[in-house]
C-alpha cells in the first residue's frame, strides 16, 4: 500500500468514526461562546471577500470581532464556515462543532505524515494506525474533538507547526512554511507559541551535538576556543517573521489600537480568573491554585493504562538511540538520525505541553482540557511502542494477521471506556484510580464543563409534561445558554424551558458537581423530593432529576 493511500485510509476511518458519534457529544458551556463568535467572524469575512466598502471600517470590524475578543480567531473561522455550510443538515450548533472534527482529523493526518516520513512506509503506516487508534480511544480527547472550543484546534495547529519545524530539518520549503503555520497556530490559542519551549532545546541539543562531532565546522576567530556558533535554523527565522504577520493578518480586531489590544489580550490570560477545580477533595479556585502535580495526575488517571505503558516503553527504547545521535552524531546514519530527531522532539513536546500547565503559575482547572496538545505526541509515542512490540513478536508469532490482531487488541482497551462512558466522556477515569467511582471517592470531579448531556435532553423531551420548566443545580445559568441551542436545533421539545428562577421550576436537575460550594446544600435541600430519573455510571450518580413539587409524575 502506498504511503498516501494508507494515510488517507487511516484518516478516513478516524473521520468517519467521529462523524458517527458527533450527534452524541454533549454541548459544553464554551460552545455558546465560540459558535456565535465563529458566525460573526465569517459573516464579516463574507463582506470582506465581496469587497463591501463598509467591511473594512473600524466600526464594522469592531462590531464583528468584539464578541469573544479574548481569543484569536482561526478556529472560529472554521466553526463559522462549517456552520454556514452544514447548518441545514446538522443544525446550528452541531454544524459549527463539525469544525472540531476537521481539526481532530488533521491531527491524524499529521501523525501519519510524521510516522511515514521518519519510519518509512511500512512501519510508518503501522505506527500511524496504532497511534490513531489509541487517539480515537481516548474518551476525553474524543469529546473535545466534537466541541466548538479551541482545545483540539490548538492541539492540531500546535502539532502542525511542530511537524513543519521538524520537517524543516530536512526541507528548505518546510522551513519557510513553518512561519505561516506557526502564525496560524498562534492565531488559534495562546498556548501555541509555547512550542518554542520544546523547539529551542531541540535546536540546542541537535546543533551542539553536530558541532561537537564535526571538527571541520567553521568557527570565527572572534569566538573563544571551545565555543562555536550554533547555526540559526531557517524555520525559527520564518516563525519569528512570517508568524506574527500571519497572526495579525487574520485577526482584524488587532488592526486598530494594536498595542492596547495586544496588551489587553496578554493581560486577560496572564490574569485569568479562577475556575473551580476539585482535587483530592479540596476545591481550588484562586491562588494558590491546584498543586503542580495536578495535570500529571489527571493525565495518568485518565489515559488508558495500556496507552501510557506503550508510550513509556517507547521513551525507554528511544533513549539509547537519542543518546548516540547526540553524542556520536557523525557515526549515526541518516535513517537513525531522522528517527531519533522525531523521538527527541516527541519527548520534549510531551514534557513541555503538560509542564506548561503545571508550572506556569496560572489557574489549573478542567481536568485534561488545558493540555490538549500533549495527547497527539503521547499517542504517537504509544504507537511507536506498539510497533516495537509488533516487531518483537516476529520471533514468537509467525502469522502476520494474528500478530496484528494481538497488538490491535492491546490498543483497544480505550474503546471499552468509550463504550461505557459514551456521551459522558469527561467522567471517564482509568483503572489507576478505580474508574469514575474510585476517582469520585478519591475527591476528583465526576464531570466538568457544565455538559448538557444528550440523553438527558432526549429523556426530558420524551417524559416531560407540557410546558415543563426545569432548573439545574448548582450551576443553572450555563444550561440556560446551552439548552437554547438544543431548542434551536429541535433536539429539545420547544415547550421545555430552563428557567432562571429555581422556585418557578417543575423539575430540578442536580448535576452532582462538588466543586461548587453550594452543591452540598442543594443536595441536602432536594434529597427528600421524589427522584424521577437518575443517571449513574460505574455506580456514581452523574445527574438526578427531582420533582420540585411533592406529587409529580413524568408523563
Amino acid at each position: 500500500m502506498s504511503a498516501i493511500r494508507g494515510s488517507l485510509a487511516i484518516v478516513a476511518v478516524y473521520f468517519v468514526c467521529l462523524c458517527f458519534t458527533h450527534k452524541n457529544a454533549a454541548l459544553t458551556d464554551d460552545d455558546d461562546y465560540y459558535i456565535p463568535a465563529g458566525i460573526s467572524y465569517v459573516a464579516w469575512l463574507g463582506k470582506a471577500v465581496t469587497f463591501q466598502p463598509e467591511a473594512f471600517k473600524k466600526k464594522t470590524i469592531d462590531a464583528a470581532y468584539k464578541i469573544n475578543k479574548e481569543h484569536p480567531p482561526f478556529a472560529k473561522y472554521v466553526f463559522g464556515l462549517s456552520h454556514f455550510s452544514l447548518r441545514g443538515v446538522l443544525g446550528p450548533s452541531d454544524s459549527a462543532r463539525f469544525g472540531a472534527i476537521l481539526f481532530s482529523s488533521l491531527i491524524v493526518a499529521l501523525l501519519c505524515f510524521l510516522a511515514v516520513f521518519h519510519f518509512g512506509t511500512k512501519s510508518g503506516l503501522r505506527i500511524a494506525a496504532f497511534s490513531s487508534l489509541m487517539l480515537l480511544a481516548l474518551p476525553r480527547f474524543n469529546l473535545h474533538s466534537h466541541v466548538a472550543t479551541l482545545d483540539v484546534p490548538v492541539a492540531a495547529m500546535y502539532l502542525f507547526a511542530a511537524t513543519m519545524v521538524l520537517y524543516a530539518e530536512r526541507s528548505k520549503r518546510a522551513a519557510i512554511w513553518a512561519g505561516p503555520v506557526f502564525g496560524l497556530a498562534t492565531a488559534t490559542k495562546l498556548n501555541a507559541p509555547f512550542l518554542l519551549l520544546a523547539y529551542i532545546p531541540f535546536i540546542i541539543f541537535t546543533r551542539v551535538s553536530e558541532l561537537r562531532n564535526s571538527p571541520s565546522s567553521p568557527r570565527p576567530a572572534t569566538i573563544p576556543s571551545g565555543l562555536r556558533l550554533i547555526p540559526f535554523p531557517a524555520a525559527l527565522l520564518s516563525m519569528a517573521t512570517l508568524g506574527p504577520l500571519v497572526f495579525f493578518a487574520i485577526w482584524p480586531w488587532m488592526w486598530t489600537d494594536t498595542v492596547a489590544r495586544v496588551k489587553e489580550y496578554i493581560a486577560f490570560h496572564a490574569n485569568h480568573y479562577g475556575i473551580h477545580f476539585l482535587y483530592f477533595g479540596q476545591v481550588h479556585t484562586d491562588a494558590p491554585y491546584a498543586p503542580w502535580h495536578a495535570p500529571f495526575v489527571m493525565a495518568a488517571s485518565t489515559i488508558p493504562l495500556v496507552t501510557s505503558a506503550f508510550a513509556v516503553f517507547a521513551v525507554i527504547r528511544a533513549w539509547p538511540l537519542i543518546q548516540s545521535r547526540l553524542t556520536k552524531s557523525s557515526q549515526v546514519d541518516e535513517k537513525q538520525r531522522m528517527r531519533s530527531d522525531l523521538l527527541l522532539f516527541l519527548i520534549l513536546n510531551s514534557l513541555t505541553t503538560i509542564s506548561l500547565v503545571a508550572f506556569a503559575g496560572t489557574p489549573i482547572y478542567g481536568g485534561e482540557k488545558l493540555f490538549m496538545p500533549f495527547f497527539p505526541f503521547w499517542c504517537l509515542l504509544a504507537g511507536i511502542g506498539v510497533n516495537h512490540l509488533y516487531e518483537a513478536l516476529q520471533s514468537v508469532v509467525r502469522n502476520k494477521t494474528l500478530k496484528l490482531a494481538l497488538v490491535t487488541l492491546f490498543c483497544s482497551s480505550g474503546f471499552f471506556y468509550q463504550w461505557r462512558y459514551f456521551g459522558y466522556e469527561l467522567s471517564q477515569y482509568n483503572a489507576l484510580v478505580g474508574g469514575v467511582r474510585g476517582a469520585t471517592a478519591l475527591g476528583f470531579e465526576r464531570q466538568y464543563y457544565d455538559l448538557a448531556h444528550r440523553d438527558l435532553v432526549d429523556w426530558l423531551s420524551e417524559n416531560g409534561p407540557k410546558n415543563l420548566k426545569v432548573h439545574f443545580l448548582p450551576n443553572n445559568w450555563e444550561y440556560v445558554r446551552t439548552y437554547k441551542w438544543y431548542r434551536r436545533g429541535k433536539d429539545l421539545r420547544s415547550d421545555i424551558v430552563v428557567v432562571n428562577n429555581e422556585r418557578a421550576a417543575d423539575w430540578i436537575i442536580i448535576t452532582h458537581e462538588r466543586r461548587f460550594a453550594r452543591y452540598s446544600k442543594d443536595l441536602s435541600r432536594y434529597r427528600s423530593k421524589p427522584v424521577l430519573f437518575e443517571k449513574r455510571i460505574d455506580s456514581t450518580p452523574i445527574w438526578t432529576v427531582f420533582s420540585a413539587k411533592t406529587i409529580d409524575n413524568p408523563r
Partner: protein
Amino acid sequence: MSKNLGLKAGIALVSTLWLMDSYVALRPNTSLATPEEVQTALKIIKENKKPGDIVVHSPLLSPIELVHLGGLDAAPALPSSRVTNSRRVLVLDKAHTEMHGFGSPKTTFRVSDQSDLVVKVYEPDAAHAGPVFDLYTDINQVQMSIEKPAGKVVSRCTAKRAAGGRSCPGQPEWLYLDRRKLVIDGQSQECVWAHPTNNGVIVLTIPPLRDQTQLKTLILKVQTGLTDDAVRTTAGGAKVHTEVQQDGRVLAKVTAPNRIGIYEKTVSITSDKEVQLRITSPKDGRRHHCVMASVEAAKR
C-alpha cells in the same frame, strides 16, 4: 533467550494493564442500598453522634438512598483539616469504594453482612486539641437576629433560605446566616456571612458551651474582614465593627476598616452564658463582611 523473556514480561505487563482497564470499564453498577440498610446506618449514626460531631456521607450515595437519612445534617464533602483535626467525624461510606482523606477510622460499623454501607468514626488527632466551638462548623447552633435600632429585634433569622442557610423574614435578601468561602486577604477563607445593615445591628449568638466542656473559662478568638473584592471596588467604604458581648458586658471590639486584611481579637469568656457578636457599620454599601470565631480551652 533473555530477549524472549523480556518480551514475555512485556506482554504479561501489557495484558495485566489491559485487563485492569477492561474490568474497570465494563464492570456493572452496584445495586443501591435498600431503605432498611440506610435506616440502620442512620440509627448507628444517631447512637454514636455526640454534640459537635460532623457527619459526612459518601459522594457515591444516590439521592435515592439519601432520602432515607431524613433530616440528618450531612454533606458529601471532605471537611477541611481544621475541622478533622478538632472534631469527631462520622462517615457514612460505601465499603467497596471508600472516601479518601480521613486517615484511619477509630471504629467501623458494618450495616449488615450483605450491605455495602459502613459507618466509620474518625477521632481528632490528640496532638491537635481543637476548638470547643467553631462558628463556621457549628453554624447550626448559632442564632442570628436583627435589631433596628439597637435593642429592638425586628427579625429572627430562622426562615429556610433557598440557597442554603437561614434568611431573615422582612429583611433584604442579602441579610442571612450561612457559611461562605470568600477571598479575604488574598486567601479563600471559610467564614460566616455577616453583612451589616444601616441603622441596625446584626446579632450572632453563640450558645452557652457547658455541654461541650467542663471548663468554666474559655478563650474566644474573633476574626473579621471584608472581601478583597469589596475593598477594591468600594473607595471610601465604611468600617465594620464587631462587638463581643457576654452577659451585657462588652468584652472586645474588632474593627474591619476598608482595607484588605483580617482583623482579630482574643478575649476570655465563660462557658455558662451565651456570647453575642454584634455587627454594625455606619454605611452598609458593599460591605461584604465575614466573621470567623472559635472558642478554645484557656492555655494554662
